[in-house]
């Protein structure tokens, strides 16, 4: 490993002990023999690592918690207010708009009845015409059967049929 690669590793993984034991040892060995890299490592620790060791956790002022509680209360009231408002609107709508509902129901009922009647009338027409046709056919058959055969000669049809008969 050359010095550039060593310095790269020193800047991150070596200082933060994120390297494998083998690689960590390898860099330590290099530092023993390379003054420039050793100086770089010391300067880096002094400038970018050591100052933060003195950093302490800072507590927020007490009023921050009070503000948070106020914020929570305000949000809860807003949510409750939203539900109350929504319920009031729905209740008002239901109480004030009854004629609209009544009219709507009447129109819907009328449309439903009209559709049902239309469907039943349509199907009855088809049935009636079928029965009419059948009735006419049966009538014509009975007339034919009851009639005198001599009078029916004219009904035999073509001249060929008349010839054979």
């Amino acid at each position, binding site marked *: 490993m050359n010095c550039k690669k060593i310095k*790269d590793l020193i*800047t*991150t*993984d070596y*200082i*933060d002990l*994120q390297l494998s034991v083998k690689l960590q040892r390898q860099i330590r060995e290099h530092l023993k023999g390379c003054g420039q890299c050793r*100086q770089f490592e*010391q*300067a*880096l620790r*002094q*400038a*970018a*690592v050591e*100052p*933060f*060791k*003195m*950093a*302490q*956790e*800072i*507590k*927020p*002022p007490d009023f*921050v*918690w009070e*503000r*948070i*509680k106020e*914020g*929570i209360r305000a*949000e*809860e009231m807003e949510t409750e207010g939203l539900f109350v408002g929504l319920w009031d609107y729905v209740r008002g709508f239901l109480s004030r708009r009854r004629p609209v509902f009544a009219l709507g129901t009447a129109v819907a009922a009328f449309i439903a009845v009209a559709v049902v009647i239309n469907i039943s009338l349509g199907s009855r027409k088809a049935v009636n015409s079928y029965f009419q046709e059948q009735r006419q056919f049966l009538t014509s058959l009975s007339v034919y059967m009851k009639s005198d055969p001599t009078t029916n000669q004219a009904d035999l049809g073509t001249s060929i049929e008349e010839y054979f008969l």
Partner: protein
Amino acid sequence: MTDIPRDVLIRAANADIQAFEQVYNAVSGFVYSVALRITNNTADAQEVTQDVFLKIYRNLKNFQFKSSFKTWAYRIAVNTAINKYRVVSKEKKRMVSYDDTIEAGNTIADTSTSFIEREDAEKAVASLLNGLNSDQRACIILREIEGLSYQEISETLKININTVRSRLKRARLALLGQALERGGAP
């Protein structure tokens, strides 16, 4: 960040304000510190802290416990703080500097070193972070101050682990450059 028992989180998710106060007490130090170090402004940090806890309260009922609460809270805090910093930077509405914050006397958790030493250390940290962009700043805070691993930073910021490496590298080289300019490092 102190670990929070699962039952406390469940009660907080069910709008139990006392349980939520326990969550606040466990997390607020981290949230405020991150917010302050990223925004570099007391008023903004307070606003960010407030926003973060309202977001946590609102969304805790949807938290599935698939990832750790810590990572989830870190993510909300860092993202909210970065967004705030970007908006404020654009609007150029900075009012109070981080240095003033330290002078105003915030409560610092540890009492092992003297106040002056802590004050100086905090000023030094603020000054160093000020020279970094918000992404680099977030990585340095999570790594150096919060002690997160590369993997945890990657999960918190939802970025590739190599992006974590490159941001840390650039941030550290920038800090080294600052030190060399001041003549404070060899």
